[in-house]
């Protein structure tokens, strides 16, 4: 149901009047409860102290650049862990006198939790940590705060010392390790050098130059060989084309030519004349003579053949071109053989060189690797030596308390806690709650009570007009009673307020 503010105010006024006795009773109860709480609320003091902390890990500057340091834990959390750690809290318990009654382990645990809950550690700025401790006892507050600060500084210095020591040990160990590595490295290089004499700087360049020269020689010789072979083939072809001897024109041949010529002439004449014609007969005789001459010539030759006499034959002579070609051919063959031998020799040399090169290379790579390792190890080793000396100085400084980075900025103080509720707050709260709680309850009843409390709620809900809203009819006797009752209630409220005021004054004066 929609309610306007003035309607709410009016309804609340009427309802509080209607339920005046419970409202006043609740006001009184709330006030009394709050006053009691205010009186019984334990007094609270707060001790605080600030400490400058330069908590840079000793490892960090020492190992800078050589090893990657892990991210240091959050400073505040670290400080909190240390201060609220079992070691410091145990000592605080002992020194502040909590252990005087010999509490059991369980009780000690509860005490520690209690102290933890009342201690706050807050970072102020970059390097300052503030420790605050609350307690009901003023002296103890101061003592515990001071103890916290002292123990924290002690603990941190001890921690730092051990950290420096462990850093030194670590660096020392590393240095020794690198020294051994370096020695092993050098020994290996020495052995490699002695086993592989060729392995010296520049030998690979020389080798490659030699290989190139050999290759060039082989190529050139191969070309010469091919040239000679081609020349040989060409000579071969020419030799086969030339005759060993030349045959001159023979007499028999001349006779045969003459016979054929005369025969032709004879055939022509026979066309026009009879065999008896003088020209024909003459010709026949001439042919006969010539044939006889030719056969005589043949016979002579036939006679000469069986004797196999290499007598000069006036018709056959040695061919001079052929002779020349034969000479050149044999010359060429000689050249080819020589070239072949030269190529084989060059190849052998090349193979030898390649084999030597292979050995040279493997030795060379290993040498380079070893040299590089040696170089790096030497650098790191030198760096570690330098750092080890610095760490040694740090240890000496720590043992002399020279390099301490923990100082108390603000000595422990104790004052009434600003966060603890004051008595006047209880009084004021009691009065306000005494009014607000009943009003709130009345409002809740107005909204959620299934009984009808507002006339317009009826018309709105049941869609029926409200014919009249009849207020309570007070009889004269009732009115007198009401007046008395209201006076009584006013008295009760006034008495409650007076009690609150009196207690506040008394408290201010410091009596309670």
């Amino acid at each position, binding site marked *: 149901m929609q309610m306007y503010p003035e309607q709410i105010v009016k309804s609340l006024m009427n309802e509080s009047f*209607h339920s005046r006795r419970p409202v006043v009773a609740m006001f009184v109860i709330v006030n009394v409860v709050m006053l009691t709480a205010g009186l019984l609320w334990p007094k609270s003091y707060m001790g605080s102290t600030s400490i400058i902390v330069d908590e840079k890990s000793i490892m960090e500057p020492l190992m800078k650049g050589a090893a990657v340091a892990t991210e240091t834990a959050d400073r505040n959390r670290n400080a909190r862990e240390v201060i609220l750690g079992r070691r410091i809290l145990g000592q605080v318990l002992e020194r502040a006198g909590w252990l005087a009654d010999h509490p059991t382990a369980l009780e000690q645990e509860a005490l520690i939790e209690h102290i933890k809950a009342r201690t706050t550690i807050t970072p102020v700025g970059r390097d300052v940590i503030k420790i605050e401790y609350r307690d009901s006892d003023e002296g103890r507050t101061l003592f515990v705060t001071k103890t916290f600060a002292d123990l924290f500084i002690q603990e941190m210095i001890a921690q730092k010392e051990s950290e420096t020591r462990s850093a030194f040990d670590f660096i020392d160990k590393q240095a020794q390790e690198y020294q051994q590595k370096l020695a092993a490295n050098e020994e290996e290089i020495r052995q490699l050098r002695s086993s592989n004499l060729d392995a010296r700087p520049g030998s690979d360049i020389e080798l490659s130059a030699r290989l190139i020269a050999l290759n060039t020689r082989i190529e050139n010789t191969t070309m010469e060989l091919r040239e000679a072979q081609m020349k040989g083939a060409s000579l071969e072809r020419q030799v086969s084309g030339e005759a060993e001897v030349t045959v001159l024109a023979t007499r028999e041949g001349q006779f045969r030519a003459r016979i054929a010529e005369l025969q032709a002439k004879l055939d022509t004449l026979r066309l026009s004349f009879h065999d008896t014609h003088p020209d024909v007969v003459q010709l026949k005789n001439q042919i006969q003579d010539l044939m006889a001459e030719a056969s005589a010539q043949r016979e002579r030759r036939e006679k000469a053949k069986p004797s196999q006499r290499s007598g000069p034959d006036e018709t056959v002579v040695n061919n001079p071109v052929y002779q020349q070609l034969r000479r050149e051919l044999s010359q060429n063959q000689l050249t080819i053989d020589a070239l072949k031998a030269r190529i084989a020799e060059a190849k052998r040399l090349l193979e030898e060189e390649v084999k030597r090169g292979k050995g040279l290379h493997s030795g060379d790579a290993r040498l380079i690797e070893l040299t590089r390792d040696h170089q790096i190890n030497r650098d790191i080793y030198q760096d570690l030596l330098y750092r080890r000396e610095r760490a040694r100085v740090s240890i000496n400084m720590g043992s002399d308390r020279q390099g301490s980075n923990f100082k108390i900025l603000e000595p422990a103080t104790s004052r009434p806690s600003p966060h603890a509720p004051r008595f006047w707050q209880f009084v004021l709260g009691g009065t306000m709650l005494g009014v607000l709680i009943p009003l709130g309850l009345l409002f809740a009843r107005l909204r959620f009570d299934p009984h009808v409390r507002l006339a317009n709620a009826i018309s709105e809900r049941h869609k029926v007009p409200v014919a009249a809203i*009849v207020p309570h*009819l007070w*009889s004269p006797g009732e*009115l007198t009673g009401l007046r008395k009752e209201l006076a009584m209630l006013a008295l009760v409220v006034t008495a409650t307020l007076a009690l609150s005021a009196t207690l506040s004054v008394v408290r201010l004066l410091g009596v309670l």
Partner: protein
Amino acid sequence: MSKIEKALKKAGDERGNLQVVPAAPAGRTAPWTALLGQQIQVPETIPRMAENERKLLSADELGERGIIHPQHTEEPAVQVFRELRTKIIQQSQEQNAVILVAAVSEGNGGSFIARNLAAAFAFDSAKTALLVDCNLRNPSVHQLLPNAMLPGLADYFENPEMDVSKIIHPVGIARFRAIATGGLREIPAEYFVSMKMRRLVDSLRERYRERFIVLDGPPMSDIADARILSELSDYVLVVARHGRTTNAQIESGLNAISSRKLLGIVFNDEPRIPWIR
């Protein structure tokens, strides 16, 4: 106080008791009569009622009995009942009517509203009021009578010869009469369904034209009785009380009666600080 009542009061002061004005011819009162002072044509019953009136109760005595009085001008309840009465008169167009006042449930103050509504009708010198106690289980009208044993509804139903006038009794308020249940004996609810009850209501209505009859009904949780009585009456007022009545009760009560006759809901006992207006 309405203008009419102021005028009447003034006239009464000047001329003694207005109620003893000589009788005018019988008939209905014109709506404007109240404004005319001396010239009011008062119905013949009113002077006769004045003769029969027992000693009138003072304003304080009425206050103690929880009944409004026109002199209680500062009392907000008086104004409320006056307005309610005027509303009903307007609704009935100046004719008399039978009004059933029924509480949603027991303890909602139905009788209180009925009694005071009747008293408000009686404020007007030209009207009379008759309060009939129909709440058989928890009767209250007899408290207004000087003697609780005076004959009432029960006697009327049991004696067929009994005249109606025998059960109508003055209560000490001018123009206000009441019919109690009759002694404190139980009367069966079946009487309400009888023709006799209907005839009684009709004769009460017909006999005195200026009379407004208020039935103090049983709570509506008694659905049967409430329904019968609502049929007998012209208008119904349903009473709900602050902090006592739930919406569910109102819902079921409203279902029991005809919405045609329903005038509305009277929200009773609203808390209000007495001296703050």
